[in-house]
């Protein structure tokens, strides 16, 4: 055999050149492809079957790196078919064919190819083969075997002579094992392997492999809870993988899966819509089927059940064709959940749901998903009055919980050992508690049902506590959303305003920043209210309700329909936007605003008007109400309105406002770039206050001012990002002051005024923690934030803010000053967040 590396000088020069191309393929695939083609034609002319086989393999490996799986397969098959080629060379071609066949959607055949190759390979090449078999095994869901295969390979490869090919397979083996660890949810082990792989790739100059392994970092970052870091890594990986469409698409699809698991379906959808067409084009069928399944899950979560159904059926077909039976129940789950929203519930559908939950449970890899689906099946059974099925399904979820074990915080419980307990431990707490609550309510035991919900929510709350990042906290809290909805629904049907208030506040406290977690009861709120009123809005399914707390009583009122109110708010916001962008303002635009505002008012506040009194108002919004500029409603003009995320948050903001030291406040104002009136506004503001100074409109000085000022006023452009609300910010001369920048500041001024468009906008993935600038300032210790909820005209903002500060200095509290200034100037787009009822002078 001529492949002996003992005396390289004696070796066939064409084979040496072909091997060089093989080595090159991972470092510089374009170059390797050209070189291998030259060798191939020379080898054909010279009648050198060995060189021909190696050259074909080099072309295949390069093509595979460049994302052309079909061409890779073609050349490997050519290599295998060359008459007279040494068996070891053919086996090496088969070795490379293993991953290619896997990725083309045939993992079982890939394992057969591996078995054929085995006999003719050296021990070292067998180790290399094992790293490739692991990929096929992992795709088939045989994770244990995949890890064993990698372990075996890595033991050999670590002691290998250390040619670039050996290093490549060592690094590749670590990468593959890391990926299997991540499939199994062992993020730390995955990170260890990936880091080792990156290190070896760097040392060996395997830049391309380094790029490929770095492409897994965004995915791992999400799984380890660092969403902001993940997006940064994603952008880096996007740059380095430019030119490798199939790899880039696979990276995006993996990242999307992690985003989906982190309850970020909108972001996941954006990634998948980029990934799927590229995976289709490159023929990466295995990755495509998985990506399509994720897309189906996303379509369902983001409210398009019809697309979800189509895509899930397509994914199921593809997965079945690839013999990946362990994945099929996941696709079926999407189909069934989609049907549940599109069709009336039937006994047959209930049976399908139960069967699918059983299949998911049998697969063991999806126990948490199986439990969640079982709960859905129980609810569906109740919808067709099939109580026996519902009870049987609920019993499976609650049988271990009914031992009435004393409540023990997470971390203090013993790790379950036997498989039965493992299965039990895989039932997510919110699902188990939901099942318990449902069982109790079926037995008319309201007290038991409420208790189950309370226990469940407090456990979700403990999990949320482990995250610092407010967006992650909010998304982690989503795990308790259905349970909280169930508790609220029970309270609404019970008709007690006090219970509705309790469950609304309890749910808001789960996601809230740590300071607002302690619950307050209506008595406490009444003690703070004085002559004012607090309205806490809650959504129960499609119905919008309001709990009204006044000095005299707590009442519950139904106010309207969620969708109707939302549409009216969208119309009002649109009318305000048009009014603001048209200069001079045509009369019809002013009328549009009036018409839309009256409509919102009619839906939202008219049922409450008789009891609202005429004092200051505290509003706890829900859903689309977070985007409502309350000051635009005619019945609220000139009335102080404070908007807060929860009643507890308002009580806490009042305490902060009271704690402020006496004496004239230290006022700092800064202007952002590219506005005609911002500097004039800053001068007007500072002229009002005895202790005021201007800060340069750059991020550094503004962050410094946050640490010392009692009042901070920023006149600048504002940018709101609905998809990543913590990236929203105020545009300063050297960049944006983003909500993220505020997470590390030690304190925040008592009053922050953001005289900018949309600076008050938030996204509220769960109630209790609106994500955006006002919520971030309030969490950092501000008592009150005044910010715009719609685009504002530069000149109008100047007029409004000058008057607002004059009124502050005259001794009016911020909420009343804003209401008067808005009424006088007609600029109704600003809102007072937090507690603005404490005068500064």
């Amino acid at each position, binding site marked *: 055999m001529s492949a002996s590396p003992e005396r390289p000088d004696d070796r066939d020069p064409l084979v040496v050149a072909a091997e060089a191309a093989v080595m090159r393929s991972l470092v510089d695939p374009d170059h390797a492809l050209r070189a291998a083609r030259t060798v191939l034609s020379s080898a054909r002319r010279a009648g050198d079957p060995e060189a021909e086989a190696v050259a074909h393999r080099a072309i295949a490996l390069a093509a595979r790196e460049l994302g052309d799986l079909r061409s890779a397969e073609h050349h490997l098959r050519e290599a295998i078919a060359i008459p007279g080629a040494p068996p070891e060379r053919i086996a090496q071609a088969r070795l490379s064919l293993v991953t290619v066949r896997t990725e083309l959607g045939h993992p079982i055949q890939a394992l057969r190819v591996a078995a054929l190759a085995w006999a003719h390979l050296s021990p070292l090449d067998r180790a290399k083969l094992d790293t490739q078999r692991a990929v096929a095994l992992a795709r088939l869901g045989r994770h244990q075997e995949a890890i064993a295969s990698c372990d075996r390979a890595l033991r050999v490869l670590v002691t290998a002579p250390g040619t670039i090919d050996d290093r490549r397979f060592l690094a590749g083996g670590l990468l593959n094992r890391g990926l299997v660890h991540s499939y199994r949810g062992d993020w730390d082990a995955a990170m260890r392997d990936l880091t080792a792989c990156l290190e070896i790739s760097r040392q060996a100059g395997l830049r391309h492999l380094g790029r490929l392994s770095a492409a897994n970092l965004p995915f791992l970052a999400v799984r380890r809870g660092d969403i902001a870091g993940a997006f940064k890594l994603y952008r880096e990986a996007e740059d380095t993988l430019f030119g490798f469409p199939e790899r880039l698409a696979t990276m995006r699809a993996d990242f999307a899966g992690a985003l989906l698991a982190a309850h970020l379906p909108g972001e996941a959808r954006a990634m998948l819509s980029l990934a799927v067409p590229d995976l289709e084009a490159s023929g990466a069928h295995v990755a495509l089927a998985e990506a399509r399944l994720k897309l189906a899950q996303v379509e369902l979560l983001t*409210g398009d059940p019809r697309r979800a159904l189509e895509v899930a059926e397509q994914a199921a077909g593809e997965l079945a064709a690839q013999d990946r039976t362990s994945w099929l129940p996941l696709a079926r789950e999407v189909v069934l959940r989609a049907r549940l929203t599109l069709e009336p519930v039937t006994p047959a559908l209930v049976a399908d749901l139960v069967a699918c939950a059983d299949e998911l449970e049998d697969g063991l890899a999806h126990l948490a998903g199986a439990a969640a689906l079982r709960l859905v099946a129980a609810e569906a059974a109740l919808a067709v009055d099939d109580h026996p099925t519902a009870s049987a399904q609920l019993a499976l979820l609650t049988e271990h919980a009914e031992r009435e074990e004393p409540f023990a915080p997470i971390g203090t419980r013993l790790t379950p050992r036997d498989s039965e307990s493992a299965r039990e431990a895989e039932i997510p707490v919110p699902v188990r508690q939901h099942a318990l609550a449902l069982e109790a309510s079926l037995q008319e035991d309201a007290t038991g049902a409420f208790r189950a919900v309370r226990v469940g929510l407090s456990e979700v709350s403990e999990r949320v506590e482990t995250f610092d990042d407010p967006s992650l906290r909010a998304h982690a809290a989503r795990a308790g959303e259905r349970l909280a909805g169930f508790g609220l629904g029970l309270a609404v049907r019970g008709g007690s305003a006090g219970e509705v208030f309790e469950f609304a506040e309890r749910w808001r406290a789960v996601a809230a920043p740590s300071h607002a977690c302690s619950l307050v009861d209506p008595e406490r709120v009444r003690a703070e209210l004085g002559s004012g009123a607090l309205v806490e809005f809650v959504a129960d399914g499609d119905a919008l309700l309001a709990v009204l707390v006044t000095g005299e009583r707590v009442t519950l009122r139904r106010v309207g329909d969620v969708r109707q109110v*939302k549409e009216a708010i969208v119309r009002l*916001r649109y009318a305000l936007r048009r009014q603001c962008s048209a200069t001079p303002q045509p009369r*019809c635009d002013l009328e549009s605003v009036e018409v839309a505002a009256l409509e919102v008012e009619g839906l939202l506040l008219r049922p409450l008007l008789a009891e609202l009194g005429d004092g200051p108002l505290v509003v706890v919004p829900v859903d689309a109400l977070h985007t409502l500029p309350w000051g635009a409603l005619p019945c609220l003009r000139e009335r102080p309105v404070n908007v807060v995320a929860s009643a507890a948050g308002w009580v806490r903001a009042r305490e902060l406002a009271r704690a402020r030291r006496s004496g004239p406040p230290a006022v700092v104002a800064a202007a952002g770039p590219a506005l*005609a009136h911002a500097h004039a506004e800053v001068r007007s503001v500072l002229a009002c206050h005895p202790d005021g100074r201007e800060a340069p409109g750059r991020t550094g000085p503004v962050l410094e001012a946050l640490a010392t000022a009692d009042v901070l006023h920023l006149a600048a452009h*504002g940018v709101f990002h609905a998809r990543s609300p913590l990236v929203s910010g105020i545009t300063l001369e050297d960049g944006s002051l983003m909500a993220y920048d505020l997470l590390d500041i030690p304190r925040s001024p008592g009053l922050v005024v953001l005289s900018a468009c949309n600076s008050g906008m938030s996204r509220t993935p769960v109630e209790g923690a609106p994500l955006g600038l006002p919520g971030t300032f309030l969490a950092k210790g501000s008592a009150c934030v005044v910010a715009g909820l719609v685009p504002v*005209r530069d000149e109008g903002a100047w007029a409004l803010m000058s008057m607002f500060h004059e009124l502050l200095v005259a001794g009016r509290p911020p909420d009343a000053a804003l209401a008067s200034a808005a009424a006088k100037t007609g600029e109704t787009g600003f809102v007072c967040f937090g507690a603005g009822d404490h005068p500064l002078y």
Partner: protein
Amino acid sequence: MINDEYFLAALRLASGNDPIPGHVSAAARDAYRFRVPGGVTADPTDRGAAGGVRDDEGSHLVRFVVAGLTFDLEITIGDGLIDVAGHVSPYPGEGALIDVRTPHLTLTRRIAGSGDFAATGLPPGWLSVVCHRPGYKPVQTRWVRIRP
């Protein structure tokens, strides 16, 4: 060469040996469903950007114009789903209705006296709006694709 291919295709069609595949007819039926009988189509046009506003990023704004009618649409994308607000000018009068359409969903809304309308919670993707006015031909906008 090319003529030969046409000739062969014509022969196949004439002999009835080349039936239209099922999915092609299904797609054709789907497309036909979106037809607005007698409808006039409004094309997208540029709209001037607003100045003097403290806003860096406009939301998604589209304007469609056809003889005598202007549609302005503002599309905002939330957590996956999209909201559509719009304005028809001049006000088409009492009894006018707006259909906001996606390939699977049509939401019918009345038009406020100001000419405003809104529809929320639509899946991203293809979108078109049809205005039905009593006594006039319906006017539909071209389909626009809203990416999430």
